[in-house]
């Protein structure tokens, strides 16, 4: 099925464009919206954004592939991103990350068989005072330990919490 923005999305994009003297400035916000709507930024999603902003596909492609927050392929329902940069690593994020790799039994960037999780290692999340930090979708989970991570994954699996 062909991807398309809803009428509501198009109104939102139009409103975003009003914030800048040049429509091109809406590229990042429009890609964020596309990711929310379509789950990830496929080549088709890139074309949809380019059409909506009347910009060259090559421009949107360049931007989408430059920034790490745009997922270029599908991710699980929960995108588990573990910060392994220095402050988190000093407080044990490496152990958490290795544990998650074993527990979820999945390669980096791939989706678990149940479709629930994608595991990713990320750079500094700006949450160093509450390290280790894991970002799941748009939410931060701070002061994590292996035990807390286990409990969090179980709660997500059982649907006890949602993010």
């Amino acid at each position, binding site marked *: 099925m062909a991807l398309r923005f809803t009428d509501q999305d198009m109104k939102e994009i139009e409103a975003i464009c009003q914030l*800048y003297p040049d429509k091109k400035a809406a590229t990042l916000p429009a890609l964020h919206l596309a990711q929310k709507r379509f789950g990830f930024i496929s080549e088709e999603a890139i074309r949809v954004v380019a059409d909506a902003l009347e910009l060259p596909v090559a421009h949107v492609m360049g931007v989408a592939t430059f920034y790490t927050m*745009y997922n270029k392929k599908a991710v699980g329902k929960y995108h588990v991103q573990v910060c392994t940069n220095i402050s988190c690593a000093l407080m044990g994020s490496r152990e958490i990350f290795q544990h998650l790799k074993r527990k979820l039994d999945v390669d980096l960037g791939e989706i678990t068989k149940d479709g629930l999780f994608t595991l990713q290692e990320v*750079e*500094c999340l700006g949450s*160093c005072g509450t390290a280790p930090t894991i970002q799941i979708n748009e939410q931060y989970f701070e002061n994590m330990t292996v035990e807390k991570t286990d409990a969090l994954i179980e709660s997500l699996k059982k649907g006890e919490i949602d993010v």
Partner: protein
Amino acid sequence: MSEYVLFKQLIDPDVRELNHYIKLGGYEGLKKALEMDPTAVVEEVKKSNLRGRGGAGFPCGLKWSFMPKDDRQKYFLCNADEGEPGTFKDRYIMSENPHQLIEGMVIGGFAMGASVGYIYIRGEFKFIADQLQKAVDEAYAAGYLGENILGSGFNFELYLHLGAGAYICGEETGMIQSLEGCTGQPRLKPPFPAQVGVFGKPTTVNNVETIACVPDIIRKGANWFLTIGPERNNGTKIYAVSGHVNNPGVFELPMGTPLREIIFEHAGGILDGKKVKAIIPGGSSAPVLGPEHLDIAMDFDSLKEAGSMLGSGAIIVMHEDTCIVEAFARLADFYAHESCGQCTPCREGTPWMAQIIRNIENGDGREGDIELLYDICVKIIGRTICPLGDAAVFCVKGALDRFRDEFEYHIQHKKCLVENKVAIYG
């Protein structure tokens, strides 16, 4: 007990709400500024010695004075990209005391004749941007933003803009590129942003913490600000302490507070009573210090004198169980990952440095690797458009200079000097 200039949530936990902010003198600085001549506002900020809190420590008032005085459209851009490893201070201003940032933006806009401001926030901080947006909406509703602010005839629109995961967008011209909807690849200077900035117009970019200092400087006067902190390094500073300490967190203290006091009094000392081994004093790009520096005054000039820098004021503490080679392999990897790819020395040099340090860490180091690393440093520094390459060099070279013995031990013995080390990498 020091004065809180920025963390007013420690005086009133509800200061994020407009009426609470106003009770603490909020928007009084703006009222006062709007009755002044814009040039006088710039002069007052100049007089206060307010220096940029994002990393460079450039005098804020001087930066403002670079903006042309013609009637072109001008922009005021707030750098809330907070991505320097170890740095987590601006987020608390935005979530806990957002109106002070907003007020600072309006005053800055008025002083420089900019009628539009953008706050560029890293994309991962969407939950913080949502909180800040509420405060912006409140400020619009109360007439502190929008048209004819407080009947002064001055108009100022303020918009939030989310990044999408790129450290390089914390560099001001990378940020400008990104705000224009492009890849965040920095631009050559000159022209400086004050001449040709975002959308081709004069632009000033300041860090969140810098801007949030402005309302109180105007309200209480530059002379008051000069009473805090050492000469030429005035004001308070938010020190963000992370790593091997008992009480990591953000502490607003007078600029120049000794490192020992910050680590041992405020951050609760070293985990498990262990010994300090290394301290990065200003975010990962600041050359690493050792325990002999604990009595240093944490301000711009003192750190520069010690061969490092205050940077963002982010203090990363490593205790004796840390393998320096491993820690800096991880940091070298960060710069390699975040290099935008535009300049050859940085694009090729940062992954090369990371690879060599990783090899040393893995027991595959060779004689001459240390000299090779120094050589790569020389070939990166000063040869790139933006300071990311320089930052990578400060980080790696700092570790080589101070902990050369540990690198040598690794190369000779094919193993770590540290037993029972904290696992950082791989």
